[in-house]
């Protein structure tokens, strides 16, 4: 990392210079705003470590100047206790962090580590965006269809925020994958991602799973256990099948979201948690409210940023891309040498309705892979797995999803 140090006190400047070099930085150290302006041109630093008060000007102005020629530049300001207002102003001007005098190397190290982590994250986000443009991928989500382009677009915007997200979509459409991608693209990417399926556990146990419990709080609670909220502290908690949570627990969840604190079962202390909540349901949330499965007040809390995932039949053009993606993954694991698709096999996959969506497609691809003799997955294998697809007419015909399903059922 190329760091320009701007500090008028000679001993501090030299101390910073040597400390940053010892931390692995490449440095240039100057004492005035004028020298800094020249060094920005010549040295082209990635980061400015600048004292707020300089003999010939203002350190924040030096940073602003550096940002004009390269908006990606980061800044860290050095300030004394008496100039904390300047630190606030500097943060508003876009500096990443500030250091309070008297300076310590450990303080410097923490700030640089934080900066390096953020820069890595940004570069990962850039590469993910590049991936998306080139190959129709965003994280683990795959698709080049119009519905998926819309999903990617929403997802990128959602990832920048810290507000709760509610993902809706039929079973198998990739709600957890979408939640992971939101986490991976967010500023919390380096923090924990914890996923919990509210439908997969007995309603009586959900509370202690989510909020944890104290020792002896109920029969069998022989030791203290942290809940998922505490495990996800600083990161993202994904709650799938949110409508499967009982109404009384929904009230407690609402309270947690409002107070940003949790209380373990049997505990007496409220514990502060910083968790970004992403929840999901395969039901229509409005219908779930009408049926009493989802509290309306909780719904408004969860649905700050909605993300709707399309069914696979709404994005049939993505099927070959997904099928090839799954084949590659399976080949990496099983190494049976099944390396290609017969185009007719892919056509057959596009004819199916996929009520189980992407999850069903992945299973079918896996079964086809296992059943394939040789290198290429043939249409006969697919027809056997998806009866009713083999005798349909035009290979790329696009009948309505329902029609095909009905045709298949009739034949069966």
């Amino acid at each position: 990392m190329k760091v320009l140090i701007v500090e008028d006190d000679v001993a501090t400047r030299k101390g910073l210079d040597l400390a940053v070099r010892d931390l692995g930085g490449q440095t240039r150290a100057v004492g005035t705003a004028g020298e800094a302006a020249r060094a920005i041109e010549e040295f082209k630093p990635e980061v400015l470590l600048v004292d707020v008060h300089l003999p010939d000007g203002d350190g924040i102005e030096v940073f602003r100047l550096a940002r004009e020629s390269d908006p990606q530049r980061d800044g860290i300001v050095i300030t004394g206790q008496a100039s904390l207002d300047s630190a606030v102003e500097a943060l508003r001007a876009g500096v990443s962090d500030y250091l309070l005098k008297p300076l310590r190397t450990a303080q410097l190290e923490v700030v640089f580590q934080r900066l390096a982590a953020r820069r890595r994250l940004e570069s990962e986000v850039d590469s993910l965006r590049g991936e998306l443009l080139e190959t129709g991928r965003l994280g683990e989500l795959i698709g080049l269809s119009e519905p998926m382009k819309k999903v990617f677009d929403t997802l990128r915007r959602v990832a920048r925020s810290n507000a709760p997200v509610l993902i809706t979509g039929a079973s198998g459409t990739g709600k957890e994958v979408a939640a992971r991608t939101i986490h991976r693209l967010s500023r919390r990417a380096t923090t924990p991602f914890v996923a919990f399926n509210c439908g997969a556990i007995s309603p009586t146990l959900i509370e202690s799973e989510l909020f944890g419990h104290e020792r002896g709080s109920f029969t069998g609670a022989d030791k203290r256990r942290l809940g998922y909220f505490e495990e996800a502290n600083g990161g993202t908690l994904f709650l799938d099948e949110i409508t499967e949570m009982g109404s009384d627990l929904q009230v407690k969840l609402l309270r947690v979201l409002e107070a940003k604190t949790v209380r373990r079962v049997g505990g007496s202390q409220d514990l502060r948690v910083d968790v970004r909540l992403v929840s999901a349901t395969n039901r229509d949330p409005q219908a779930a409210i009408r049926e009493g499965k989802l509290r309306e007040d909780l719904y408004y809390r969860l649905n700050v940023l909605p993300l709707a995932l399309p069914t696979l039949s709404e994005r049939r053009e993505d099927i070959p891309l997904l099928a090839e993606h799954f084949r590659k993954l399976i080949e990496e694991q099983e190494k049976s040498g099944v390396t290609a698709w017969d185009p007719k096999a892919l056509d057959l996959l596009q004819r199916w309705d996929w009520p189980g969506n992407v999850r069903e497609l992945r299973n079918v691809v896996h079964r086809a892979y296992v059943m394939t003799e040789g290198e290429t997955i043939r249409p006969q294998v697919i027809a056997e797995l998806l009866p009713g697809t083999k005798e349909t007419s035009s290979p790329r015909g696009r009948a309505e999803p329902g029609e095909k399903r009905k045709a298949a059922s009739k034949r069966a």
Partner: protein
Amino acid sequence: MTDRRILERFFHDLATPLSGLSLHLERAHRLVTKGEDASEALEIALREVEKAFALFERGRATLLAQPGDEERI
């Protein structure tokens, strides 16, 4: 200047040589750990201590020159 402002100014002035002191002392420690010569770093650290003392004396004089409570009443 109020007592509070004087103290803030006092801390602020001291913070610069104290920064130099800690950065060079820590540098000296790193050098010694690696078996390298730390004399220059220690010399700078000592100069910063002296600067801090000088500033302390100046700050103390300013602080003591403040009027007492009874005078302010």
